[in-house]
């Protein structure tokens, strides 16, 4: 049993894509206010698992899902739960930056606005604050009204992060959030993540082992839909118990 306080508890999660068993009886605990990295070879189910954590997986047609994902003591798949509430609480950063087709300001204000905030003053404050947190404010403060698409990819990804943070989630999911970025932009995103973990529970999927080593406190190793091993990052990287984890970390399977 875990020695930490879990923020998300996944229990016996099974997921089928039209017959393809993509997640096999997953049971994992994700620690609060730490960075958890989900690692594993391509196609092992990392994205699927991540999207199951904020029910974005609901958007895929023809899936079958069973098991529980308990966040703050509540199963997010329970029929009583309002899915928009879950997604507000659990933010997501995608693989590529997708700015909404509107200005920089409106991108960050989008979330607060759809959740009912109308006051210009408060919105201004939120936009500034979260652009600061994402490390973008200084670069964009003079052109908040210009289209978000004019930013570089690295800036766009930080904008997307600010946009996610602006709805005040407790948990942030990142699906290979730096894979489309240059090394310098990746580094900036990594720094922001490290700074964020004092307030947020963070789960990232990554292909890059060294990134996992740099960021993760806790690691989940997935292989063909199975959780092979999970534990504190140090243990997994320095002293993996399972043969397949050793092979993956040693670079023999990728």
């Amino acid at each position, binding site marked *: 049993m875990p020695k930490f306080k879990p923020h998300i508890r996944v229990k016996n999660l099974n997921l089928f894509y039209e017959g393809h068993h993509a997640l096999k009886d997953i049971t994992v605990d994700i620690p609060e206010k730490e960075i958890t990295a989900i690692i594993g070879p391509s196609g092992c189910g990392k994205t699927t698992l991540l999207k199951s954590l*904020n029910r*974005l997986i609901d*958007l895929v*047609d023809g899936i079958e899902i069973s098991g529980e994902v308990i966040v703050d003591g509540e199963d997010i798949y329970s029929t009583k739960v309002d899915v*928009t*509430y*879950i*997604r*507000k*609480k659990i*933010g*997501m950063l*995608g693989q*590529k930056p*997708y700015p*909404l*087709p*509107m200005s920089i300001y409106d991108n960050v204000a*989008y*979330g607060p606005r*759809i*959740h009912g905030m109308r006051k210009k003053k408060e919105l201004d404050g939120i936009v500034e604050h979260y652009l600061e947190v994402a490390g973008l404010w200084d670069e964009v403060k003079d052109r908040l009204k210009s*289209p978000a*698409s004019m930013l570089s990819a690295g800036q766009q990804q930080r904008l*997307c992060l600010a*946009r*996610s943070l602006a*709805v005040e989630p407790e948990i942030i999911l990142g699906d290979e959030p730096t894979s489309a970025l240059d090394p310098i932009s990746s580094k900036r995103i990594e720094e922001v993540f490290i700074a964020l973990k004092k307030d947020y529970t963070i789960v990232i999927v990554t292909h890059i082992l060294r990134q996992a080593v740099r960021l993760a406190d806790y690691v989940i190793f997935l292989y063909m839909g199975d959780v092979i091993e999970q534990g504190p990052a140090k243990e997994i990287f320095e002293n993996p118990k399972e043969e397949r984890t050793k092979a993956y970390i040693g670079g023999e399977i990728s």
Partner: protein
Amino acid sequence: MDRKLKEAIASKLMLLATVFSSLLIFAVVIGLIQKSRPILATHSLSELLLSSSWFPLRGEFGFYPFIIGTIWVTVLAMLFSLPLCLLTSIYLAEYAPAKIRAFIKPLIDLLAGIPSVVYGLWGILIVVPLIKDYVAPFFGYSATGYCLLAGGIVLAIMVFPIIIAVSEEVFRAVPHEIREVSLALGATKWQTVKHVALRAALPGVIAAIVLGFSRAFGETMAVMMVVGNVARVPSSVFEPAYPLTALIANNYGEMMSVPLYDSALLLSALILLLVILFFSIAARIVLLRIERRVM
């Protein structure tokens, strides 16, 4: 043959074809201007455009009633079709399950293939009597049913398939990921459609509407069959009107013994063409501005 040579020939051929087709529009415009000269020489443009007296035998050619008729029929058609088309295309692209979509899509495409005359007949058999017996009396008018409203309804139904097909494609071309972004922030489906999908699709939707407008403006046969064709400025939607296209189609080749008549008709064709050109150019400008603002 040498690949480079082939390349050169192919690109030249394409250039030639492009030049030829763009020259066509100039050829048409110049031809029409040429033919409208006689009437422009004897009548002032403002008289032609703004006078309501249409007495070709007396040499009076006031196009005002026809211009108003054209505008009204088009505007009515757009008023009826726009909300329905938008809602339908949003439903098909965003909400409809794949099965329903697969069933409805071909039906709508089929509508586009129905010849204009058939719509006209349908208008005469269904729309005209309906207006005469129910709609007009309900609003306290007595009418033959051959009127602006009938023209607008028939035309609206004719532009349906184009607008729906084009705007549905446009909605589907909006990347799925930006919808996901919105939903992942906790937006509802409708919020996502309204603030994200519709916004991203806006330029394309406007293009679809302009396409619809152009068709509505130029459509002749079906409208002519139900709109009454009386050369008078209509004072309500239950009165007959006489759009420009109907004027040309009804009279060209028939009344040619009347002096200046053919010149007058070709002038009206020119006006029609210029208005449609104006629309397309205006739409392009709007499109460009929107793209620059939101994209």
